[in-house]
């Protein structure tokens, strides 16, 4: 890990090319998604498979077939037998239940992927959690936990950051402020954002592109 998160990355073209199928139980996904935008929102009713789609992109759901390409690099190609393990993917995943490591302090959680102390402090500052660094996750509010989980993912310097209902526990003014900051940061660091939200609210409104997932089908709005 060199440099800080906010440092301007080498300007490369980010692009995501997804074409996957997956059926688990009653859920059947057949998704085509092509984009080169910085921020994409996926909206749709609960149970439509939004979270599952993020799990496929993160590489923790291994049963999907098809193809995933991130900026020209193949993450999944079942025809050629390619499956890039999640730890090799440079993907950030902030699941709906933030899933902080309960036995570590906020600082240890954020430094988990190997970020330096100064990087951790800078990111904590940006996400307004710096006073909480020495606390344990159990002593945080829901909104604080979400921000710590986001910081932890950002500090792993992903190419693609997957956010599942990322700011649902925040009240509106803070949410708007934070969404703005994250977008700015992603822009500077060259990170592509894929946000999932169950309604077409503030979070989705900030995205450059919005897609609707209904009954396993993804359509651009």
């Amino acid at each position, binding site marked *: 890990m060199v440099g800080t998160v906010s440092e301007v990355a080498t300007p490369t073209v980010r692009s995501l090319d997804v074409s996957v199928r997956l059926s688990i139980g009653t859920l059947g996904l057949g998704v085509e998604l092509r984009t080169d935008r910085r921020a994409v929102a996926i909206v749709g009713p609960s149970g439509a498979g939004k979270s599952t789609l993020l799990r496929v992109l993160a*590489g*923790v759901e291994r049963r999907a077939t098809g193809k995933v390409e991130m900026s020209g690099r193949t993450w999944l190609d079942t025809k050629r037998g390619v499956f890039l393990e999640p*730890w090799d993917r440079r993907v950030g995943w902030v699941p709906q*239940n933030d899933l902080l490591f309960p036995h570590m302090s906020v600082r240890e959680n954020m430094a988990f992927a190997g970020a330096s102390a100064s990087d951790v402090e800078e990111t904590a500052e940006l996400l307004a959690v710096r006073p909480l660094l020495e606390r344990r996750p159990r002593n945080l509010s829901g909104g604080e936990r979400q921000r710590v989980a986001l910081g932890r993912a950002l500090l792993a310097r992903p190419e693609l950051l997957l956010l599942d209902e990322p700011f649902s526990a925040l009240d509106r003014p803070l949410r708007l402020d934070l969404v703005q900051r994250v977008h700015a940061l992603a822009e500077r660091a060259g990170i592509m954002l894929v946000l999932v939200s169950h309604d077409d609210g503030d979070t989705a409104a900030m995205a450059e592109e919005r897609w609707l997932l209904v009954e396993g089908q993804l359509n651009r709005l």
Partner: protein
Amino acid sequence: MVTPRPGSALPSLIPRASRRAQFSALIGCAALFAPVAARGQAAAPAQAPILVLAAASLSDALPAVARLWEARGGAQVEFSFAATSRLAPLTLQGNADLFISADREWMDWVVKGGGAKAEDIVPLLGNSLVVAVPAGTESPPRTLAEVVALPRLALAGEAVPAGRYARAALEAAGLWDEVEGRVVRGESVRSALEWVARGEAAAGIVYRTDMPVTPGVRLAFAIPPEVSPAIVYPGVVLASAPNAAAAGEFLAFLRTAAAQEVFIAAGFEPPISRPPAAPPQAGPVENPGSAILLSLVVGLAATLLGLVPSVLLGRLLARREFAGKALVSTLILMPLVLPPVVTGFLLLTLFGTRGVFGPALGAFGITVPFTLIAPVVAAVVVGLPFYVLAARGAFEAVDARLEEVSWTLGVRPRSTFFRVVLPLAVPGIAAGAVLAFARALGEFGATVVLAGNVEGRTRTIPLAVYSLLESPGGSGGAWVLAGVSVLLSLLALAGFEGLSRWQKKRLEEWSGR
């Protein structure tokens, strides 16, 4: 008709070909208490059965004589066979009618305890000692001097008459001090013989009457009469016998020519009058401290050795689906439900010097039976189910998605295991370790078969307590060790409770946010 009660007179039910099964039956002393306890006051006056407590060495001949007796219209006879040392305390419980001891000492002990009158004691039979060797021995020893040069000599326990007689013979020959360190003690003559049959001991000193009923051994030579103590089996109708009249008749019948003929055919002799065997010089447990130390060493060693396998197996069973998972799980849990004696028997088959792994281990100079390794192996195996179950539960309680998050943060599974999964599972694994330690402290059945009962080497607290309970006047020492046992168990269980709470608290902390 002879009707042995279930579990008590098992030996007489088993055909001679399967005498090995008897080995474990003889050790299962718990079963022994069944007939005495089960016998109520319901004894009908007319044809009430006679309950006979008889030395284990009589378990073949005596039922045959009883069949003869019953065929002639005698009352039904029921038996409980075990080592005399184990039966003697039961004579004072007031339910049995007749006691046939394998030596005079235990009979005198019963008289002293008020269980019988000295003038009622009748000498019934004689027996003699022989040296037994494994059936395949090429040049068996011919003299006691050659026997004591062998690497290991199996005798019955020091409180068991056969064990005392053997020691008396070796003392009379002036060889006891030389061989004492290489003696291993079985719980009975039959278990000593089993070790000989398996080649774990190069020779054993046993009754002549045990030879024809044990496969895998052969007679090397008879102990010469000049060193052999007089072996006399006295019988007595107990003072508290509910069925004294019939018991007296049966006792008289045992001395008739018809009965004696059956006994002599089985290798017994008419009773001879020579001075009785010298009483043992020292109590069986000379140093209770060594048993406590040994128990702690064995418990700690088993806990440490079990750690890595339990963590690996617990993790495997918690997170992986694979062919044969049910089989692996069942095998690990087996010692939980198997009688410990059976576990010991199987371990002896695996790790005995002639067992499956014995020769390979021997090539590295490792001997399992009768060494310190044996109680540790037994403790690891019987403790493993607790250990693995606890580890499995601890791993299952860790949210699998925490691992997934760790992967997406660029941390590989191995590193994720050590940084995330293991720290969260530690309290549960520690609770399992404490349980395994507690189980190791209590381990008896498997140890007694695999490790023998050798003071300072394999005699842990439970084995020492057992030996003390078997010897007259040993109850003081038994109380001390029992107290230590209770204390250690309480500490271990308190530790388990504490660790379980710690684990539960941690689980609650991160689920209930």
